[in-house]
């Protein structure tokens, strides 16, 4: 067993895929010197043909990757800021995503878009702190949010090997997470298969990304009163509805914690499907960012806008206490 950090897991996944498959290439800003510590050493090893430091032309290089993918490559793009995905939304949602269907299956666009450090990085304020995974799930681009080092490794592999466009968010709050892992056992993680991090019988908590750790803490804190099951979907789209149903149909109680805007977010979708299809015994709850959230700069305000462990704890208690 080796101690692996989430960030190192991303680094290792990319390096392993580049070694395994020479159609894998990586594009992005400042990836040559690896400012985000994911592309470390790759330029020296693979040269500028496969490791491309790009000018600040996100739209062009995103569709450039689409073209390279159509011609047979598997590009990976690193974005420095989550909101840069807003800037290339046309290129991903309207171009890359639509090629397969619109061409009647002639084309495929295996590009991975990844953001190392999504969500709030304290003090980066309104334009650098978004968590826009729900936007991609809505338009139907495969959307992955790993919460652990193993899953960071495995889902990055899966993303690169997938024949469709895939967006991978690595939350800023997860990059430092460490785990003891068997390096030899690391491998691809399938899409649409969630993971129960902690089994429980009273309340199902669905947590996304870095909030998985918060959910585990809350579960531990409540252990003597409430038996909390912590479900990590790992891939938001496609979503493991069957896996979630198995849990919710047992517990009958559901709380979702999600660091994205409330309105039309993934937490709402989960509640909706639970209401439609699962055996809820009491009304479910969600803890999210506010509607339309813009993260204010000052630390006190920034924190006040992110979902908090104590809010989750209260929500779990309320759902547990609610009468059937």
């Amino acid at each position, binding site marked *: 067993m080796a101690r692996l950090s989430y960030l190192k897991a991303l680094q290792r996944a990319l390096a392993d895929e580049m070694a395994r498959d020479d*159609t894998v290439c990586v594009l992005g800003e400042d990836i040559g010197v690896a400012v985000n510590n994911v592309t470390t050493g790759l330029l020296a090893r693979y040269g500028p043909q496969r490791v491309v430091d790009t000018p600040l032309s996100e*739209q062009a290089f995103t569709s450039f990757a689409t*073209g390279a993918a159509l011609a*047979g490559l598997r590009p990976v793009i690193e974005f420095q800021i989550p909101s840069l995905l807003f800037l290339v939304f046309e290129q991903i949602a309207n171009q890359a995503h639509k*090629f*397969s269907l*619109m061409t*009647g299956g*002639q084309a495929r666009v295996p590009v991975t878009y990844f953001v190392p450090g999504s969500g709030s990085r304290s003090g980066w304020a309104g334009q650098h702190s978004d968590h826009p995974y729900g936007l991609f799930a809505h338009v139907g681009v495969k959307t992955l949010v790993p919460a652990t080092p193993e899953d960071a490794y495995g889902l990055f592999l899966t993303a690169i090997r997938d024949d469709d466009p895939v967006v991978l968010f690595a939350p800023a709050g997860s990059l430092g997470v460490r785990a003891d892992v068997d390096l030899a056992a690391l491998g691809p993680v399938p899409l649409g298969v969630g993971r129960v991090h902690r089994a429980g019988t009273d309340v199902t908590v669905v947590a996304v990304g870095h909030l998985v750790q918060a959910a585990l803490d809350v579960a531990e804190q409540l252990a003597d009163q409430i038996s909390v099951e912590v479900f990590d979907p790992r891939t938001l789209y496609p979503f493991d509805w069957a896996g979630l149903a198995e849990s919710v149909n047992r517990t009958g109680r559901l709380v979702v914690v999600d660091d994205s805007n409330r309105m039309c977010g993934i937490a709402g979708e989960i509640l909706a499907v639970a209401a439609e299809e699962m055996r809820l015994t009491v009304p479910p709850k969600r803890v999210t960012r506010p509607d339309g959230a813009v993260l204010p700069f000052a630390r006190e305000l920034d924190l006040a806008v992110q979902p908090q462990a104590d809010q989750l704890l209260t929500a779990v208690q309320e759902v547990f206490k609610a009468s059937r």
Partner: protein
Amino acid sequence: MSERTTVHRSGDEELYRTMRLVRRFEERAIELVGAGEIVGGIHPYIGQEAIAAGVCAALRDDDVITSTHRGHGHVLAKGADPVRMLAELTGRATGLNQGRGGSMHAADFGRGIYGANGIVGAGGAIATGAAWAHRNAGSDRVTVSFFGDGAVNQGVLLETFNLAALWRLPVLFVCENNGYATTLTVAQAVAGSITARAAAFGIPAVTVDGTDARAVLAAATEAVERGRAGGGPSFLECTAYRFDAHHTWEHKARVRYRADDEVAAGRSRDPLDVQAAHLAEGVRAAVDAQVEAVLAEAVAFALASPPPDPAGALDHLYATGLRTRNGIGLVEPAADPLHQAAAHVPAEVR
């Protein structure tokens, strides 16, 4: 010009044949729009045929193009089957895209046609990325990106000029200046000149008469050869006049933005006549008859073809064959058993 690049479409007769095919294809398509057989209308290419014909005659079969909303000319000139193309426009299962794309997304990856595109300026970066992939794979293939005068105001295309120049990629940018972006004139929309925009990035940029197929072929050949030899990108502005509507909706809802005498003057120089002047006695009529036969077959084939099965409406949504929920929340099996195998995998790169 290397032997491999001297393709069969580059002779005077073949240039004319391509142009005639495009012209008559568009005229038949406009009829089918009127008859309700083509739903959603088309952006006719009439008046610009010499550009697609001339540029594509400079290309090899394994070269790649990206096209636009006004894409029929490019797709046909690059060698797509007019029969399957018309089946696509009429929304048939036998169409190039199995009826999934229509006029604005017609593609034929087997012939290097990476698709028409509904978003102005969107093809340039895609073309440039493909050129990069080919170059890195050691291939000498060249990519051409067609776009209109309106596209030179799109940021992503201007960004792309920089990438192509910086990395000296084998891509030819072909701007078809037909005087208008829908109803806006070039003078109203473009500060400075069109070629200056490419030149600012160090890309060799010239303007040619886009109604003269020979002139277009010559200029394109020079640019393509430069790209093939590692000389980097080129830019060609081809001037022409759009004879017909921006889109066939104009046929019903007339909007006034071009004076009648301007239109008459524009139409007076017909690129087909320009090219036909180079043909020997009798050749034009013979070619015209051949084209007529092809189109008769195309129309008959299209109209006789079955529409796609609605049960397969979501086929190909994902190249992997992933099925997700339909509009009432169920996951339906794929109607098309081939959905996993259909993707085109370019042999040269993989």
